[in-house]
């Protein structure tokens, strides 16, 4: 019922607008009677009303517009020529349409408005006859009233009749058939003229009902309700933007005053400042609201998409939508539309399984796709979740390897959550086949780019067999951004909070031990993950003011990269109003805008994306880049993988003997005799624990084993290592000081590293490894035969 109401409401608003256009068109038409363009425009308007009224089952309105449309079609096609009689007929029709609309607006029904007279009148015109002009019902009563009243009263009267006719006046005696009407319009010549002119300007529909309602407040029950056309107005977005800006200024001035008031010991001033603060906040909220629209605007078309898509993919899908009414900024809404549609398509196409598969897995045949929108922490969160197959991170690992997105050793080290992030990498698609529905080149990377472009973020969670959830975090508005203010070399900068993940502070001692140098670039090990560090002072070429050796790191994420920005000091979080920068300053590539802080001073907003791109490249700080940079060099044989082998020992394995790195769960380890093996890519992979092989001791990883896999001639072995540390250039200083399982030792980066005798290690894992082209099975067969 509510939805119907809403549709009717929209229909009314739209029709009122259309009718206004109609009035203008008619006036214009009188000047250019032959204009096909105008006729076509009028035709379209009536056609639209007819279509919707048929849909909403307003039968009288439909029949009325139907004949009108026919007449207009003939005019438009030049089959008949516009005459004043026809013009009158059309105007009568338009007035009748207004009447019905007014009635619908008043009580939701077509009321008692009788259209038969107008219909038959037009029908006669259609049949080529010349009917006696019908003056519209409206014009009958008040026009001649010698009340010497101003135009407004006339209009009021007119409308009042319209509004009231459902109740007290059972219509001014349902206009007699045309013939009877003949005597009535005694003042016919005058009337016809006034009909053509008066009703048009008198009834600018949107404005009219309001004064009437107030004029007739006591008598009409509708008085409390504003007319459909009245309750909303169209406002130029530009105007809203400028209001928004000004309110932004107000908020800033408020901040300044509140701050100043806090310094002075004046209770009255403080109270006033607080009051101002309150009002400014409310005003800001109110202005923001003017630009807000419920997310339903873009959700509304999704049920159809899901239905069609489900049919296309032979999937049963139930779409559930929670939080339709959640509002966000209009421009953001537009920006979110396409990414959201893409996610929904993805979920239906790839996320949900076919009904048979679902039943086979003990799920109901019908998949559930849930859209959820809600406010959280000053952001709008939109979730798209399915209860489908989920994303197998191992498949991502394999796929990413095949596509060459990352090197095997990098992939091997990634945990499931990181692997999941790879779906956002450009050129990645987990879809086994490119289907008609998705896989058309608009990938998740584009979704991510689009969302980040509006200052949002996207997250993905997935559990195999349970489903996948994509979560969009969208700022409420573009103009005001939650940000972290930091200090560097005495200047303050703002960092949009959406790219901020966490803050880490290291005191001088910990900074020395935990900030490491990798190939001339600093990294910090954040919970076991290497975090490349970028010193803001270095980027900006300013002297840092931090002299105590403490390191303050803002962990930022942008464009799928995570890095730590080292700043002098973290100040606080603040809502800031983004101001544009001149293009000259923007082209520096470090700042995305400026803002005015509470004390009135300007602060630059750091462009985190640009920082990530610009600052990380030259130094090759990011781990993956360290590796790729090196791989450009020809002397691969000289490069080694450094691994931990327990007991603090660092062992170097020539990179040429490393095919890939893997991480397997300890549960996957099985035994064949005394050997440990895992099933790996459809084969049995023998494991050799490097610790035991080298006779060192150390604590074992309780849940996962890190494997260095070497494959040759279709056979693989894996060395179990404690830790993969780095890939470095080979040693310059070698020595033959060795021990069991080693070929010697070397100094690599000022540290003595043991060089692994890979051959003996491999043989220890698989004695038959180097017997070319022969598997142990065939050996066995040979022995038996």
């Amino acid at each position, binding site marked *: 019922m509510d939805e119907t109401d809403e549709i009717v409401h929209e229909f009314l608003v739209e029709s009122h607008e259309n009718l206004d256009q109609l009035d203008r068109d008619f006036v214009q038409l009188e000047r250019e009677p032959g204009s096909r363009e105008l006729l076509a425009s009028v035709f379209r308007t009536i056609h639209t009303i007819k279509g919707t009224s048929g849909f909403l089952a307003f039968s009288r309105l439909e029949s009325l517009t139907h004949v009108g449309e026919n007449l207009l079609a003939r005019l438009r096609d030049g089959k008949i020529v516009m005459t004043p009689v026809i013009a009158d007929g059309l105007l009568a029709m338009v007035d009748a349409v207004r009447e019905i609309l007014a009635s619908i607006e008043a009580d939701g029904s077509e009321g008692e408005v009788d259209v038969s007279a107008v219909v038959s009148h037009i029908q006669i015109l259609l049949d080529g006859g010349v009917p006696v002009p019908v003056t519209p019902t409206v014009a009958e009563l008040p026009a001649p009233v010698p009340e010497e009243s101003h135009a407004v009263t006339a209009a009021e009267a007119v409308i009042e009749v319209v509004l009231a006719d459902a109740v007290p006046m059972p219509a001014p005696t349902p206009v007699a058939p045309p013939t009877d009407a003949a005597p009535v319009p005694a003042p016919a010549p005058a009337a016809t003229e006034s009909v053509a002119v008066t009703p048009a300007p008198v009834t600018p529909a949107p404005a009219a009902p309001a004064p009437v309602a107030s004029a007739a407040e006591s008598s009409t029950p509708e008085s409390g309700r504003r007319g459909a056309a009245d309750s909303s107005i169209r406002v130029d977005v530009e105007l809203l933007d400028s209001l928004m800006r000004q309110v*932004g*200024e107000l908020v*800033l*001035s408020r901040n300044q005053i509140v701050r100043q008031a806090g310094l002075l010991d004046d209770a009255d001033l403080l109270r006033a400042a607080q009051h101002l603060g309150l009002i400014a906040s409310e005003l800001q909220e109110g202005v923001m609201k003017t630009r807000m629209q419920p997310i339903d605007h873009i959700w509304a078309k999704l049920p159809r998409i899901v239905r069609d898509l489900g049919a296309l993919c032979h999937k049963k899908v139930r779409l559930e939508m929670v939080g339709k009414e959640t509002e966000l900024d209009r421009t953001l809404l537009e920006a979110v539309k396409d990414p959201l549609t893409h996610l929904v398509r993805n979920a239906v196409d790839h996320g949900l399984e076919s009904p048979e598969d679902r039943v086979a897995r003990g799920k109901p045949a019908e998949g559930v796709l849930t859209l959820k929108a809600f406010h959280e922490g000053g952001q709008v969160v939109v979730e798209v979740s399915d209860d489908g197959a989920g994303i197998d991170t191992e498949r991502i690992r394999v796929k990413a390897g095949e596509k060459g997105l990352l090197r095997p050793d990098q992939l091997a080290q990634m945990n499931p959550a990181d692997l999941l992030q790879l779906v956002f990498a450009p050129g990645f698609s987990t879809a086994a086949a490119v289907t008609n529905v998705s896989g058309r080149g608009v990938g998740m990377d584009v979704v991510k780019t689009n969302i980040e472009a509006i200052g949002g973020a996207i997250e993905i969670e997935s559990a195999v067999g349970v489903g996948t959830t994509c979560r969009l975090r969208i700022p409420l508005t573009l103009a005001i951004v939650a940000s972290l203010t930091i200090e560097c*070399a005495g*200047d*303050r900068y703002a960092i949009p909070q959406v790219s901020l993940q966490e803050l880490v502070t290291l005191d001088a001692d910990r900074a020395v031990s935990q900030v490491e140098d990798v190939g001339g670039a600093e990294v910090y090990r954040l919970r076991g993950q290497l975090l490349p560090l970028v010193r803001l002072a270095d980027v*900006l*070429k*300013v002297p840092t003011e931090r002299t105590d050796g403490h390191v303050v790191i803002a962990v930022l994420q942008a464009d799928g990269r995570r890095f730590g920005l080292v700043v002098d000091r973290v100040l606080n979080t603040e809502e800031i109003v983004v*101001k*544009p*920068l*001149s293009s*000259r*300053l923007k082209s*520096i590539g*470090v*700042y995305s805008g*400026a*803002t*005015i802080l509470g004390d*009135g*001073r*300007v*602060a*630059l907003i750091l462009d985190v994306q640009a920082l990530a791109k610009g600052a990380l490249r030259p130094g090759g700080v990011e781990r993956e880049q360290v590796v790729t940079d090196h791989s450009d060099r020809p002397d691969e044989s000289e490069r080694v993988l450094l691994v931990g082998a327990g007991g603090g020992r660092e062992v170097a394995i020539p990179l040429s003997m490393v095919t890939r790195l893997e991480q397997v769960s300890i549960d996957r380890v099985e035994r064949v005799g005394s050997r440990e093996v895992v099933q790996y890519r459809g084969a049995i992979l023998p494991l050799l624990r490097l610790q035991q092989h080298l006779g060192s001791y150390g604590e074992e990883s309780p849940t996962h084993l890190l494997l260095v896999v070497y494959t040759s001639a279709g056979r693989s072995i894996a060395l179990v290592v404690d830790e993969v540390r780095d890939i470095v250039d080979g040693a310059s200083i070698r020595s033959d000081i060795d021990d069991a399982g080693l070929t010697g030792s070397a100094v690599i980066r000022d540290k003595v590293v043991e060089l692994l005798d890979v051959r003996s290690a491999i043989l220890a894992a698989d004695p038959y490894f180097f017997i070319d082209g022969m598997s142990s099975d065939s050996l066995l067969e040979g022995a038996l035969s």
Partner: protein
Amino acid sequence: MKVQLATFQLAGYTYGIEVGMVQEVLRQQSRTRVPLAPPAVAGLVNLRGQVLTAIDLRSRLDLPERPEGVEPMVVVVRVAGEPVSLLVDSIGDVVDVDSDTFEQPPDTLSDAGRELITGAYMLSDRLLLALDTDRAVAG
């Protein structure tokens, strides 16, 4: 033809810009420096909630740096509808000049100086250099 110029001083020279371009004149404001920006960008200033780029004309015109302790004045000009603030040493009068007295820029000016000067007007007691504001701001 008469032209009205707003005048200001820079390192002993008198410069003028068309009065119509000047939006307002302010005392020195606190500026936020912009690391990595071109040297003439003296920072960003807050003009009633608008963020303006401040350009130091001394640096722009290749003049020696402003001595320590001399607080610059700010001339806010509108170039292509956008306000920009220019840092000058001090503000002079608005003078009426006759286009008849317009001459080529004097040779004694540095290259950078010449480029940004459209010419000079002879006043009774001194030379008034007409600044090409568009170019001065664009650099």
